[in-house]
């Protein structure tokens, strides 16, 4: 899809004259009270195909302990047993799959840019109540990113400084409370990180419960897997921090998934989303809340 124009159907819908909104009635009412006038339901899509990362793939960049993937986090593990056999996993590696992260960022970023383009076409100042999903289409290698929100104009307010509307996952009373607390939404912040665990012998044994046949005793942490899980979460947070530019992240949602590929090998992925917010006034602490008991 070209970047210079909205799809014809989107242009026709947005020019129809009637406003549309994904807000609930309480959120809609709260936004009107704040001086936010809905002008249209805006959305962006992007369908991405994921390539093959296995043997023979142009993306496979860490088939030996001496290569370090596509840059980024990587660490190697060496077998403590010496030579055992040709099948023995004498080395292992954790490495960041930067090409997977880049593909996710491209998919999410394109869908997000298209949502903002639609908002610009409506003359909006901001987009509120954003909902985003990523789901598999037709088969496991095709994923659709879908981002949807309600474009609003601030009554008698300033247009966005660079012409690009601000965006937020929040709407209604939650947005009102955020602004009353002295924070203004700037943009969505989101990132995905991916780490591949290429197990060495010790990880393989521990994840299959077989270390104990090698003289291991008692419960034992699987160091390589633990470090991969910690790293993938740290990478996602570092990527999002890089998008904040001195602002804060509000309402963070961190989700992780992992696919076991067998014999200790696995892929761990972590997604972090939230709203980048900027402080525009000093914070006035509220009074300590009054505890109440309902008599109903």
């Amino acid at each position, binding site marked *: 899809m070209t970047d210079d124009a909205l799809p014809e159907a989107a242009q026709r819908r947005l020019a129809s004259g009637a*406003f549309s909104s994904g807000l609930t009635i309480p959120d809609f009412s709260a936004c009107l009270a704040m001086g936010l006038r809905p002008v249209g339901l805006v959305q962006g899509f992007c369908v991405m195909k994921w390539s093959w990362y296995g043997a023979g793939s142009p993306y496979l960049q860490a088939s030996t302990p001496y290569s370090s993937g596509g840059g980024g986090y990587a660490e190697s593990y060496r077998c403590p047993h010496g030579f055992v056999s040709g099948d023995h996993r004498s080395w292992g590696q954790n490495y960041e799959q930067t090409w997977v992260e880049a593909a996710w960022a491209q998919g999410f970023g394109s869908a997000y840019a298209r949502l903002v383009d639609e908002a610009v076409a409506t003359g909006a100042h901001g987009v509120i109540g954003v909902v985003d999903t990523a789901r598999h289409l037709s088969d496991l290698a095709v994923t659709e990113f879908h981002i949807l929100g309600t474009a609003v104009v601030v009554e008698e307010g300033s247009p966005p400084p660079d012409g690009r509307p601000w965006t937020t996952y929040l709407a209604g009373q939650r947005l009102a409370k955020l602004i009353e607390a002295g924070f203004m939404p700037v943009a969505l912040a989101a990132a995905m990180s991916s780490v591949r665990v290429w197990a060495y012998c010790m990880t393989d044994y521990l994840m299959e419960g077989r270390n104990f046949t090698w003289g291991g005793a008692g419960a034992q*942490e*699987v160091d390589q897997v*633990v470090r991969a899980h910690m790293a993938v979460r740290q990478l996602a947070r570092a990527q999002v921090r890089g998008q904040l530019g001195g602002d*804060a992240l509000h309402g963070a949602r961190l989700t992780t998934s992992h696919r076991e590929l067998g014999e200790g090998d696995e892929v761990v992925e972590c997604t972090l989303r939230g709203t980048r917010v900027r402080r525009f006034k000093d914070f006035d602490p509220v009074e300590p809340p009054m505890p109440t008991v309902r*008599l109903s």
Partner: protein
Amino acid sequence: MSTATPADPSPDLRAEVRRATAALAATGHDHGRPVTSDLSIDEALLLHAVGWEPVDLVCGVSVVSVPSGVWNWGSGEIVAASQAQGLAFTGAANRIAEECGRAGGHGVVGVHVESTVQRHHVDVELVGTAVRPVGAAAKSDVFVSDLSGRDFSLLRQAGWIPVGLSYGASFVYAPRRSAGTSLRQTRENVELTNFTEAMYSARELAMERMQQTAITMGGKGIVEVKVTEGPMPFAHHAIGFAAWGTAVRLEAETHQYLRPKMVLPLDDAVVEFEAGSLRGQ
């Protein structure tokens, strides 16, 4: 579309929104490490109300190996699995506390606990928000708590502080009956006393371990205890029990009674008269 109304309900909020959007023209100020938080705005406001602020989103993970063969039929406690679960929880709690300390937090609140037991390994994941008294310097001794921002602020007001996340687990084999007993009981409504005793002691063991970790941390009690239990999906004859909660101790000289105000909501559902009620129905 016009939104003007004769009596504008929130003129100040509208002015605040205009002021906020005008502030977007200014660039963000780099104050070092940016604040990240998974707290709701209500929780953040409540924290501020008691003099605390969010610092950073923090995580802790642990994966601990379980020896093969431990899920085979046996009797009594499955000690290796109980130890693995305890070690995984301790490892994850230590890591989230380390991340909190590095971020300059004094503790972690709103910790989400995700624990899965698989045939050969136990995984524990903890995610929460590091918090500190507003503007306070970093501290080495930090607490981890699964209390929400609201519950944490209430606890502080009552004069108590969290000291850590306490945890206990126990796995047991479901007791077997002899063929003769099983046959005899086919036509009886009878208590399976060996089952009752095994489950009873396993639950007690998990809770005892949880209480022991609280005592080790210097806690006087545990609040918001959660208990999970059930058969293992890969070994239905093995039953796992886990209990966790936030260990707390009194910081003030005495408990501060909060004296809640009585509130009578006026939005009750309409109760319609039913003729049948006259006949006691």
